[in-house]
């Protein structure tokens, strides 16, 4: 499992919620990996465990069993507070509903991860404005989220996920609420800015229109990875489950 080009490595990861009759097995032994320098897509039907898996990978949820290493760090080695600090320093988030703070301007929203790390307000906002300009939103840095279009809000969210230069960016349905053109633009930004040799991006999505951005596509079903393909690289065989089905079948 300890391969150096792997940003994320999961082995037999399990996660259940509740106990007794209400117990739900969300992850049933997941083997998954994401490489540096790649956009790794997680796809699958609703309720198959995609969001749970990226929550576990990002350190937002504790797994029930299995091994997990993120950016070369075994998550078992991190206590609660150290895990929060690890997440703050190394992980960026893009949410389906953007989750921008409505009272803050675009630049201030982007600056939040820097502020959380203790950067001064002025420096944080300056860096945020600089990044927003690079992402094509230089004229909207002082705009409130409510005055931005959906695509612009998601671009602000992407800027927020990148501003502190994390090595792992986790995106949950980043294009779900966007039209095709906006979705393309958002994925283009992610592909162009988040994907670096020392960074990895994991994208949970249902949006087949953006699959062409993926370096690898892992298909989940019923809490397991059932297929991994590499449309922009050599197909990679999943450790478990069928290997030759197309991810498009998921949405057929």
């Amino acid at each position: 499992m300890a391969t150096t080009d792997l940003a994320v490595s999961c082995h037999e990861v399990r996660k259940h919620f509740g106990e007794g009759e209400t117990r739900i097995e969300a992850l049933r032994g997941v083997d998954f990996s994401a490489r540096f320098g790649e956009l790794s897509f997680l796809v699958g039907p609703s309720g198959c465990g995609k969001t749970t898996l990226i929550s576990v990978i990002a350190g937002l949820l504790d797994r029930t069993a299995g091994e997990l290493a993120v950016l070369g760090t075994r998550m078992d080695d991190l206590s609660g507070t150290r895990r929060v600090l690890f997440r703050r320093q190394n992980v960026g988030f893009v949410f389906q509903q953007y989750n921008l703070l409505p009272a803050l301007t675009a630049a201030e929203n982007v600056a939040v991860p820097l502020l959380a790390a203790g950067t001064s307000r002025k420096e944080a906002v300056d860096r945020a404005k600089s990044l927003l300009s690079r992402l094509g939103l230089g004229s909207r840095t002082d705009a409130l989220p409510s005055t931005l279009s959906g695509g612009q809000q998601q671009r602000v969210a992407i800027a927020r996920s990148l501003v502190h230069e994390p090595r792992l960016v986790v995106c949950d349905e980043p294009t779900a609420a966007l039209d095709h053109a906006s979705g393309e633009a958002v994925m283009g930004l992610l592909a162009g800015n988040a994907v670096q040799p020392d960074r990895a991006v994991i994208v949970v999505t249902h949006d087949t229109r953006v699959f062409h951005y993926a370096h690898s596509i892992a298909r989940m079903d019923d809490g397991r990875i059932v297929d991994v393909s590499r449309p922009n690289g050599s197909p990679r065989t999943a450790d478990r489950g069928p290997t030759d089905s197309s991810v498009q079948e998921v949405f057929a």
Partner: protein
Amino acid sequence: MNFVALRMLTGDRAKYFGLVFAIAFCTFLLENQTSIFASIMRRTSSQILDVTDAEVWVMDPQTEYFEQTKALKDTDLTRVRSVPGVAWAVRLFKGSPVARTLSGKFAVSEVFGLDDATLSGAPRKMLLGSWERLREPDSVVIDQAGYVLLFPGEPLELGRILEMNDHRVAIVGISDASAPFLSVPIIHTRYSEAVNFLGRERTQLSFVIARAQAGTTPEELAARISNATALRARTTGQFMWDCIRYYLRNTGIPVNFGITIAVAIVVGAVVAGQTFYLFTVENLKQFGALKAMGVTNPRLVGMILLQAGSVAALGFAIGTGMAATFFEIFLHKLATRGIVLIWQSVGLTGACILFVVIVASILSIRRVLVLEPAEVFRA
């Protein structure tokens, strides 16, 4: 992150102003009711406090409050004077005769008969004339509110005549006496004059007022007088609280005000506390996003406390300003003089608001602390 917390707080103007004004109105109501209540209670003993010369009041052992007097024997004055530690002791008459003007207007008044030789107990705050002119025969000093009551619409003027129990007396001074519990004229005159204003009784000595010698505290002196004479001797402060306690025990005033104050606290706590709690709950998604991005729990607690503290401080300041304005505008009249916003009420209200905000903050903090950051992935 402090500015993020404050921007979250003020971002939704409707919620923000709702929060601030919930606390402001709670503050206003509490300060208003507690101050009026305390001021009314203070009025029950305002004439005791106006006598700044004396430190100890001696009275019949069965006396419970200022309005209830039973005459002492004239020899009691001498007995009090003989107690070690007494610097001086003089007699004080208190009665409630009718005062009538030449035009026929009349009112029941509160007359204080002062020791003829020393005039101890005379009002020290004079608006017109001098209390020393009480040495003139058939002279009285009346308080401003009493003057206005008996001579409505007329300017303050010395020399006017009052008729008291068929005795004609001239007004030689107008005092600024504190408002009594009942709005009646406060009239000061010499003891020898005052006893003529009421039907003659066998004894007429209402109180002996005394002052302690240097080195003797009023409390010590009061205890010595009680032991030596079997009379009731109280310091000015003790007598004031005796009166207040009497009214608290024997009137419906505390119950009525107590209900209003309790309602103000409960409604204020529910409205302000609930509003702040709901504010946090409605922002859980935002707190969850911050948590996911690595904002630690202590930092989030600090943000919530900052939000609660700033909204409480602003609401409390506005509410106190409203209360002060209310007292300044509506209670700046002779009839309601002495009813003021007291600092104890402001302090008590501040403590109540702090308590409400702390409880609301704890409930809010709890919701944020147990919040799973993974919740932010739920659409």
